[in-house]
Structures are given as C-alpha cells and as structure tokens.
C-alpha cells in the first residue's frame, strides 16, 4: 500500500483524558490525564510505564475501542471512530486471543480480506509473514493448539499482513522467548527502514531503548517524560561505581562535580560521566572508600524510568 499520508502527523493525541467508573462503588478512576503526543511519519515511539499506568488505555482510544472524555485524537488525519482511520493501521492487542478453530492461514486470510487487500497478493504475503515469524510449519494447525508465544506471533502477522503505514503494538514481546523478542525487534527496525510509523508499549526497557526514536514514560495516567534517542545515548556514556559507604568529604566533592549519589542501606552508588572515572577512582583512593564494583552497564532508560516513578510517587 502506498504511503499517501505524508504531510501531516501520522498520529496526533491532544490533551486526552479518560476516567473509568467502577461498577459497584461508582468510584472514579483516572486512567489517562491530559495526555498529548504527536508522532511523525517513519518514527518509532515507545511508551513505558508501570502496570496500570494507562498505556493500553491510550492505545485503545487510538483504535476507537473507547472514547476519550476530553481531548482530540487523530489517526492519519481521521478520528478513531471513523473506520477508514484504521485502513492503513495494524494493531496487536495485549495478550491477543483469536478464533480457536481457525488455522493461522485462515486467520491471516481474514485479516487480509478485511483490509481490502488485492486477492492475488494475499497468499504470497501470508506465506512471507508466516515464514518470517516461524509459523509456516504450523500454518494449517488450529489456533487452539498454539502456545502463547505462537499466538503472539500470529497476532503480529495479523497486524502486519496488509503492510500498514502505522503499526500499534501493545506489549509485542509478551510471551515470546528471546529469539521471538529479537524477531520483533528486527520486524520493528525493518518497518522503520521502510518508512512506517510504529507506536508500542513494552516492559522490556532494553529493547525500547535500543529501537525507539523517542520514548515516553507514563506514570499514573500522565506522560511524565519524553526522551529522545540521543538523550539516552548521552546518558549511556556514564559509569557506575558501587562502594560500601562514602565519607562526608567525598559526598561534598561528588556534589561539586555534579555526580549522582544514591545511598542505600548496604551500599552507595555513584554515577559519573565516563571521562570523570579516573578522578572518581582517585578520590575514592584518597578517601579510603572501599569500592565493590565499577561498571558501565547501567541501563539508562531503566534508571530514568525508576527515578520518574519514584519522583511521581513522592
């Protein structure tokens, strides 16, 4: 399908809020609050957040399953309630469930036909996707006999069969083994290479960090931070020193240098830029601080994510 939608935001969410009312107590739950996000064509955007942060609710509003209480959403220039907004969009729900008695081939045939794919393109495209996701040998088996990971793979094929311009994936790595997770990463990177827009939620921060152009951190229904890829790379240029304890003088010097100090009951973590490592080690020697470990394997997104969650909860 041609990419005929350039020139405007592929996906635009402006000041969206959504509340749910519980059935019995009639208590109001604020699922999403004042959420704004615009995604350019060809961009990969990842949303991370703790359970119940409202990530899936945002995606459901985007797909038109639920309506926002406030704000506006536009998908390829159309409102989510308009079925045509989903013509060039592929969606993978969280923990997808399909028709038990259909085979993967029949399921994808339905997906292709429902997306108005030209009939002669359907079989080659399905075969290509099934091969890519490793389901080709099980394509005629009924889905009820599939494992969770296989269902997830079938769901990814279902979302991609019509080669959509926008791909929305809710926890695409869920239930997949490491090979499957790598496969999803490769698929997303390939989509980017072909100019497709990808929006996805995930709990696997290392993958989000690796593949996203921008990453949003969502906590308690709000988009707290949006990080550019280069911001994460800059922060990836830091090292971590774990020590028993710091002397007051050492703590003062750390503050002077602008190094981050995180004190725990059993140890202290000092994070500083890579070029300051020798200074930090010299200082530790002078102050007779016992170093437990030094590493540069700090997962920066994980660190920012945890800090953001803690800040919000504080």
């Amino acid at each position, binding site marked *: 399908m041609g990419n005929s939608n350039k020139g405007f935001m592929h996906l635009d969410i402006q000041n969206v809020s959504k509340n749910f009312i519980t059935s019995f107590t009639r208590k109001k739950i604020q699922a999403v609050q004042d959420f704004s996000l615009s995604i350019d064509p060809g961009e990969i955007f990842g949303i991370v957040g703790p359970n119940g942060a409202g990530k899936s609710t945002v995606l459901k509003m985007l797909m038109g399953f639920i309506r926002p209480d406030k704000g506006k959403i536009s998908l390829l220039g159309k409102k989510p309630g308009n079925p045509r907004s*989903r013509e060039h969009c592929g969606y993978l729900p969280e923990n997808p*469930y399909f028709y038990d008695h259909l085979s993967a081939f*029949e399921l994808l045939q*339905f997906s292709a036909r429902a997306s108005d794919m030209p009939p002669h393109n359907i079989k080659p495209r399905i075969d290509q996707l099934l091969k890519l996701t490793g389901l080709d040998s099980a394509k005629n088996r009924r889905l009820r006999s599939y494992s969770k990971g296989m269902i997830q793979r079938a769901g990814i094929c279902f979302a991609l069969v019509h080669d959509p311009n926008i791909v929305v994936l809710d926890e695409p790595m869920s239930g997949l083994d490491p090979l499957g997770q790598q496969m999803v990463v490769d698929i997303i990177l390939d989509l980017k290479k072909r100019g497709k827009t990808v929006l996805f939620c995930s709990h696997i921060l290392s993958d989000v960090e690796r593949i996203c152009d921008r990453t949003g951190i969502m906590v308690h229904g709000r988009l707290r931070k949006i990080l550019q890829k280069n911001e994460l790379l800059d922060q990836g240029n830091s090292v971590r020193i774990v020590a028993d304890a710091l002397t007051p003088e050492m703590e003062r010097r750390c503050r002077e240098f602008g190094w981050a100090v995180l004190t725990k009951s059993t140890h202290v973590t000092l994070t500083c830029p890579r070029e300051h490592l020798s200074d930090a080690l010299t200082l530790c020697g002078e102050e007779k601080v016992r170093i437990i470990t030094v590493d540069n394997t700090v997962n920066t997104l994980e660190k920012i994510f945890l800090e953001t969650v803690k800040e919000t909860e504080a």
Partner: protein
Amino acid sequence: MNRRIWSLAVITFKEGIRDRTLYGIGLFALMIMGLSLVVTGFFLRELHKVTVDINISAITFGGLLIIFSLSVNLMSKDLDKRTIYSVLSKPFSRAQYLIGKFIGLVLLSLTALCMLTLVSTLTIWTVKSQYPVYFKEFVWLSVFQAVFAEFLMLMVLNAVVIFFSTVTTSSFLTLLFTISTYIIGQTVEEVVQFIQSQAQEIQLTTAVKTIIDMTQYIVPNLSVYDLKIRAAHGLSITSSYLLSITGYSLIYSTVLILLASIIFSRRELT
C-alpha cells in the same frame, strides 16, 4: 455484499461449524430421528403424523440448541476474550461487525438445518416405505415448508442473540434473555387471544393492558413459524403466508440489528 462483511461472516461460520458442540447437538437430533424409526411402529394409526411431528420437532430442537449454545457463545466469546479488538482493528464499523456476525450465525443455522433436514427426509422416507398405507395424505412440500418456517424463526432468534449481546455484558444474561424471548414469543399470541376472548370476565387494569399490547408488538410472534401440525396433516401452506412470514422475519431482524448497531456504536470496549 461488502467483501469485508462477508469475510467476517465466513470466519464466524467456520468457527461455529468446527465447534464440537455442534456435533453433539447433531448427534442428539439424529438419535431422536432414529428413535422415530423404532417408536413409530408402536402406533396403530396416523403413523405419518407421528413421524413428521417427531422429525420436525427434532429439527426445531436441534436448531434451538444451536442458538442457545453456539450463537450465544460465538457472540459473547468475541467480547469476553477480547477477540473483538483484533477484528475491530480492521476498518469495520460497529454496524458492519454486527451484520457480519449475524450473517455468519444465520449461515451456521442454515447449514445445520439442511443437514438435519437431509437425515429427517431419509427417516421419513424409510418409515413411508415400511408403512405406505398410512402415508396417503402425506405431502413432502408441507414438511419442507415447515422446515423453512423453522429456519426463519432461527434467523429472528439469531438477531435476538446479537441484540442482547450488545445490550448486556454477560453471556449468561444474553442466554437468559434469548430463552425468555423465545418462550414469550411462542405464547404471546395465545395469551393476547385468550385475554381478548375473556375481556368481559377478566377485569384488567389499564397498565396491564398496555404492557400486554406493548409486549405483542415488541416481542417477535414466534408461533407463526410453527407449521408442524399442518405438515403432519399434509396440509400445504399458501405461498402468500410463507411470503408474509419471510417479510416479517426480515423486517424484524433488520430492525433488531439496526437497534443493536446504534447501542453497540455507543458501547465502550474496555
């Protein structure tokens, strides 16, 4: 027909036709028909009436079980297990989704009915060959007309299932409301006729009269589809009657699907 709607109808049909429940229902109906081969011989007169009655009843019973188990399940599973998220991520409007599901369910009922009718025909033919004397008044056309009327009733009940699936959030409630609609639909005409004939003796309040009036217009009159007795007596049904119940079924189903679409378009799929 819209290719998209048809694709949904086809997978709904396939999902239903491969369900083991259908085989169970089919087997049960076949057992009743088989039983008619044995039992009919015990009757000393009007064997053709007994045979036709048992066979059409078995078809009706099988069709109703399909509605109450398979149709309800096929609709509610989409919502309960969230399969609907994947389906509606395709460019379906909510109305198109309901129409696709409805056509799939009707196709399923039609196929099951055709299979049961085929076996039923063989059963009746066997009894007819064994006791030709008793089948002088028998007319095949009446049997097929009665089966066609049963199909129309199943079509209306499928629309009822679709409607209640969009109104309620529980498959049990959908089942309960559908069974209630069937029972009321079968009896409403008799109740109204009885009340009208006893109007002098029974003192009804205006409220009760209004409720009865409303019920007879809202609930489908399913007794119009019961042509078993006419078929058993070899009385053929006029084409104008068949045409009028066909029109009634189509209009009633369309209105229900339309109402269901309006309700479902407003429903949030959380």
